[in-house]
């Protein structure tokens, strides 16, 4: 309770100050030895002595102690792990709250800062007040002692040294008199000690128990002459030790005789301790209240700012989700109102632009379908007419027959180009629809290969298909995937210069891939970059037998993208090229990797079959 007072250094006028001695009657109650949990084993009483390891007495079967200790260790470890995990989870939760909430951050910081300031101020205040209280007490005490010394001096002047009874009586009377004097220093007890040489009589005390409690160093100092003071724990009337301010002084006894008289005053510090304790609790409570109040204000102020920001965030999110009519409410003229106004202006602009783009896209779609219909009908008629002529060309003179042939083939080309163009414009307008269905990929690949076999034969290319034995079902639009593969295989046959064309397909848990490899003239890296561009051709002089429009790879790329897949190319001049189509097995999922490599593993002359 009064550890604080016991710790204060005391200054006694110009006397040498004595550091207080830490009383060893105190035991720090804070540290308690943790006793290990009693082992939950059913150890029989006979094996209670620690360290008994080994065979138990034959009449009773019991577990050896090492097993018990092991079990105990395991339990403690499990408990420790559990506690650690729990605290980790709490820490993670706290960190998340810190990151996500401005209020939490500001509140915590304010609390820490305010708390620290309040604590420092209280400590300073507290120690100031305590020092002040004690120094007032000390001064009054010393004053009292000095008056007492003077009085005692008078009283003991007439002591007859030899007469112990009168000495005793004088001492007792003096002590009693001194005690009965009031004092601004409060309550006190008096002790007078009479020494002759080295022997000492029983002291005169106004209260029993004080004299033994006077520390020896004080006694020694006072005995050597001079007034000394010290704080000590001294028992009171009921025997309880209380912090006390002890002042001791020698009483001059006239001619330097062998007798010495020492006067000790003990000033209990009850009142001071009580005042200090009251003061401390007041300071603590008001400190806490003040801190909480400051934190509350900080949170309130933060709310004033955070609330509009949160509202803005909510509105922005709704805007992003497509509700273009959302706007913030503008109130007043401050910064927040300016924020709201600019936000609304931005939202207006966005809404306008998006609506514009949407209508443009709709226009484009309508144009596409209108053009589509309008162009197709006359084209159908023309193609049919050309076909009729073509079929009767044997009946025509050679130049007419040849004209019929050219017209027939070029109209085919025209039709293919028109279809491709319309398809591309659908992608551009965002009107392409993915019609996916669970499809057997192996069957699809084989079907395409079978369909292209006639073309391959015409070019003298050997077409091989290799893939896993088990069925792979992928959610794809079969029409589009077939179109892609037909385009890739057609290109490979056309550019393959008679070398074999290898189609390989494979699948892993998330994706499927098809590669089409040819060993023709190949592509350089620069050409590979452009190969998917619209109307781009590697060699413009190349003969077109496959009826390409220059849009085949662009359409294939868009088809692959529509599935969320990849279409990539590797090429090397002179070593051919490999196109790889990768598609996710489940529609709508993202691709992260492909089951087949883009670069062919072995660059070798064809002739070896995989």
């Amino acid at each position: 309770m009064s550890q604080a007072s016991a710790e204060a250094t005391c200054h006694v006028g110009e006397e040498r100050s004595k550091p207080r001695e830490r009383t060893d009657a105190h035991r720090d109650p804070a540290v308690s030895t943790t006793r290990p949990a009693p082992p939950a084993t059913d150890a029989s009483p006979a094996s209670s002595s620690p360290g008994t390891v080994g065979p138990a007495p034959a009449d009773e079967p019991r577990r050896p102690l090492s097993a018990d200790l092991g079990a105990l260790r395991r339990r403690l470890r499990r408990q420790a792990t559990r506690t650690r995990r729990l605290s980790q989870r709490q820490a993670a939760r706290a960190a998340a709250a810190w990151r996500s909430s401005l209020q939490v951050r500001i509140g915590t910081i304010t609390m820490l800062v305010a708390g620290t300031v309040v604590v420092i101020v209280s400590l300073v205040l507290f120690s100031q007040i305590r020092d002040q209280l004690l120094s007032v007490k000390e001064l009054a005490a010393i004053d009292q002692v000095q008056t007492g010394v003077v009085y005692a001096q008078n009283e003991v002047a007439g002591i007859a040294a030899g007469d112990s009874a009168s000495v005793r009586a004088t001492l007792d009377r003096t002590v009693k008199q001194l005690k009965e004097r009031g004092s601004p220093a409060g309550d006190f007890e008096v002790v007078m000690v009479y020494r002759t040489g080295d022997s000492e009589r029983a002291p005169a005390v106004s209260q029993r128990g004080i004299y033994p409690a006077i520390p020896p160093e004080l006694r020694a100092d006072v005995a050597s002459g001079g007034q000394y003071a010290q704080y000590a724990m001294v028992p009171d009337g009921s025997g309880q030790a209380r912090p006390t301010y002890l002042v001791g002084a020698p009483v001059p006894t006239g001619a330097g005789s062998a007798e010495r008289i020492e006067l000790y005053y003990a000033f209990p510090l009850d009142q001071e301790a009580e005042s200090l304790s009251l003061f401390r609790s007041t300071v603590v409570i008001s400190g806490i209240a003040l801190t909480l109040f400051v934190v509350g204000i900080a949170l309130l102020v933060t709310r004033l700012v955070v609330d509009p920001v949160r509202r803005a965030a909510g509105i922005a999110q709704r805007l992003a989700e497509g509700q273009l009519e959302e706007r913030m409410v503008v109130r007043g003229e401050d910064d927040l109102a300016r924020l709201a106004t600019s936000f609304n202006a931005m939202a207006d602009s966005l809404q306008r632009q998006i609506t514009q783009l949407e209508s443009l896209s709709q226009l484009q779609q309508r144009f596409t379908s209108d053009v589509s219909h309008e162009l197709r009908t006359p084209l159908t008629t023309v193609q049919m007419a050309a076909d009729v002529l073509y079929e009767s060309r044997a009946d025509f003179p050679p130049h007419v027959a040849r004209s019929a042939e050219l017209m027939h083939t070029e109209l085919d080309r025209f039709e293919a180009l028109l279809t491709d163009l319309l398809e591309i414009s659908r992608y551009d307008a965002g009107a392409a629809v993915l019609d996916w269905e669970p499809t057997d990929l192996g069957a699809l690949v084989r079907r395409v290969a079978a369909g292209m076999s006639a073309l391959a034969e015409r070019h003298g290319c050997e077409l091989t298909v290799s893939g896993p034995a088990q069925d792979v079902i992928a959610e794809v639009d079969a029409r589009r995937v077939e179109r892609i593969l037909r385009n890739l295989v057609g290109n490979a046959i056309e550019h393959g210069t008679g070398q074999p064309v290898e189609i390989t397909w494979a699948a892993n848990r998330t994706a499927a891939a098809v590669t089409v490899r040819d060993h023709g003239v190949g592509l350089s890296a620069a050409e590979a970059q452009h190969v998917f561009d619209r109307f781009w051709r590697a060699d413009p002089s190349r003969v077109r037998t496959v009826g390409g429009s220059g849009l085949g790879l662009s359409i294939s790329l868009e088809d692959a993208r529509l599935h969320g897949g990849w279409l990539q190319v590797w090429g090397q001049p002179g070593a051919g090229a490999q196109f790889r189509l990768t598609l996710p097995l489940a529609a709508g999922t993202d691709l992260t990797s492909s089951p087949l490599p883009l670069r062919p593993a072995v660059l070798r002359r064809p002739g070896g079959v995989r």
Partner: protein
Amino acid sequence: MVAVPPSAAQNGTSRGRVLVVDDDAALAEMLGIVLRREGYEPAFVSDGNRAVSAFQQTRPDIVLLDLMLPGRNGLQICQDIRTQSTVPIVMLTAKGDTLDVVQGLEAGADDYVTKPFKPVELVARVRAQLRRGETGQAESLSIGDVQIDVPAHQVTRDGVPIALTPLEFDLLVALARKPRQVFTRELLLEQVWGYRHAADTRLVNVHVQRLRAKIERDPEKPEIVLTVRGVGYKAGPP
């Protein structure tokens, strides 16, 4: 105006009468030329409002119907004809989007051809559609609790007859004849529609849906026509 030109077939017999409903005169005429060359007897109508009456008048064996018509819409004409007859109807359309195709097929068409088309293709489809009517031996099949009497073209469940179009009937019979076999869509196109070349498999999907709607107790949980994921369809257990 309905024009029914005299039969131009070489040996006096025509392979069938075809009603061409299209508002583009040039295309209609071209179609006529092509069809006549193949031995069919074309009849033409160019106005949607007169299509149904023309149908009743000419009694064709097959109808080629354009969707974009002045007057009555092609889909509506299709529905109207369907209420009166099970004659094969082939849609001609410039729009190839799935939505349009499905709409047309659900209105009652048996097939659709997108413009531009090759005459060879069109003729092949017409021929296949006309051929479908022929069947042969007496046989009686069953899937689940549905009985199929092939020569009588009758399908009954617990004695209650179920009305199917000839195409739907053929589809069901093809599946029922080989109960354990899984038919790919391409195979069905070949067997039921008679198309040997790669045609649009959406045809099969839509017709299976229509068949299921008529014949299954719960079309969402089919027991008669089962889907084999990624491959095609097969018949339920007999």
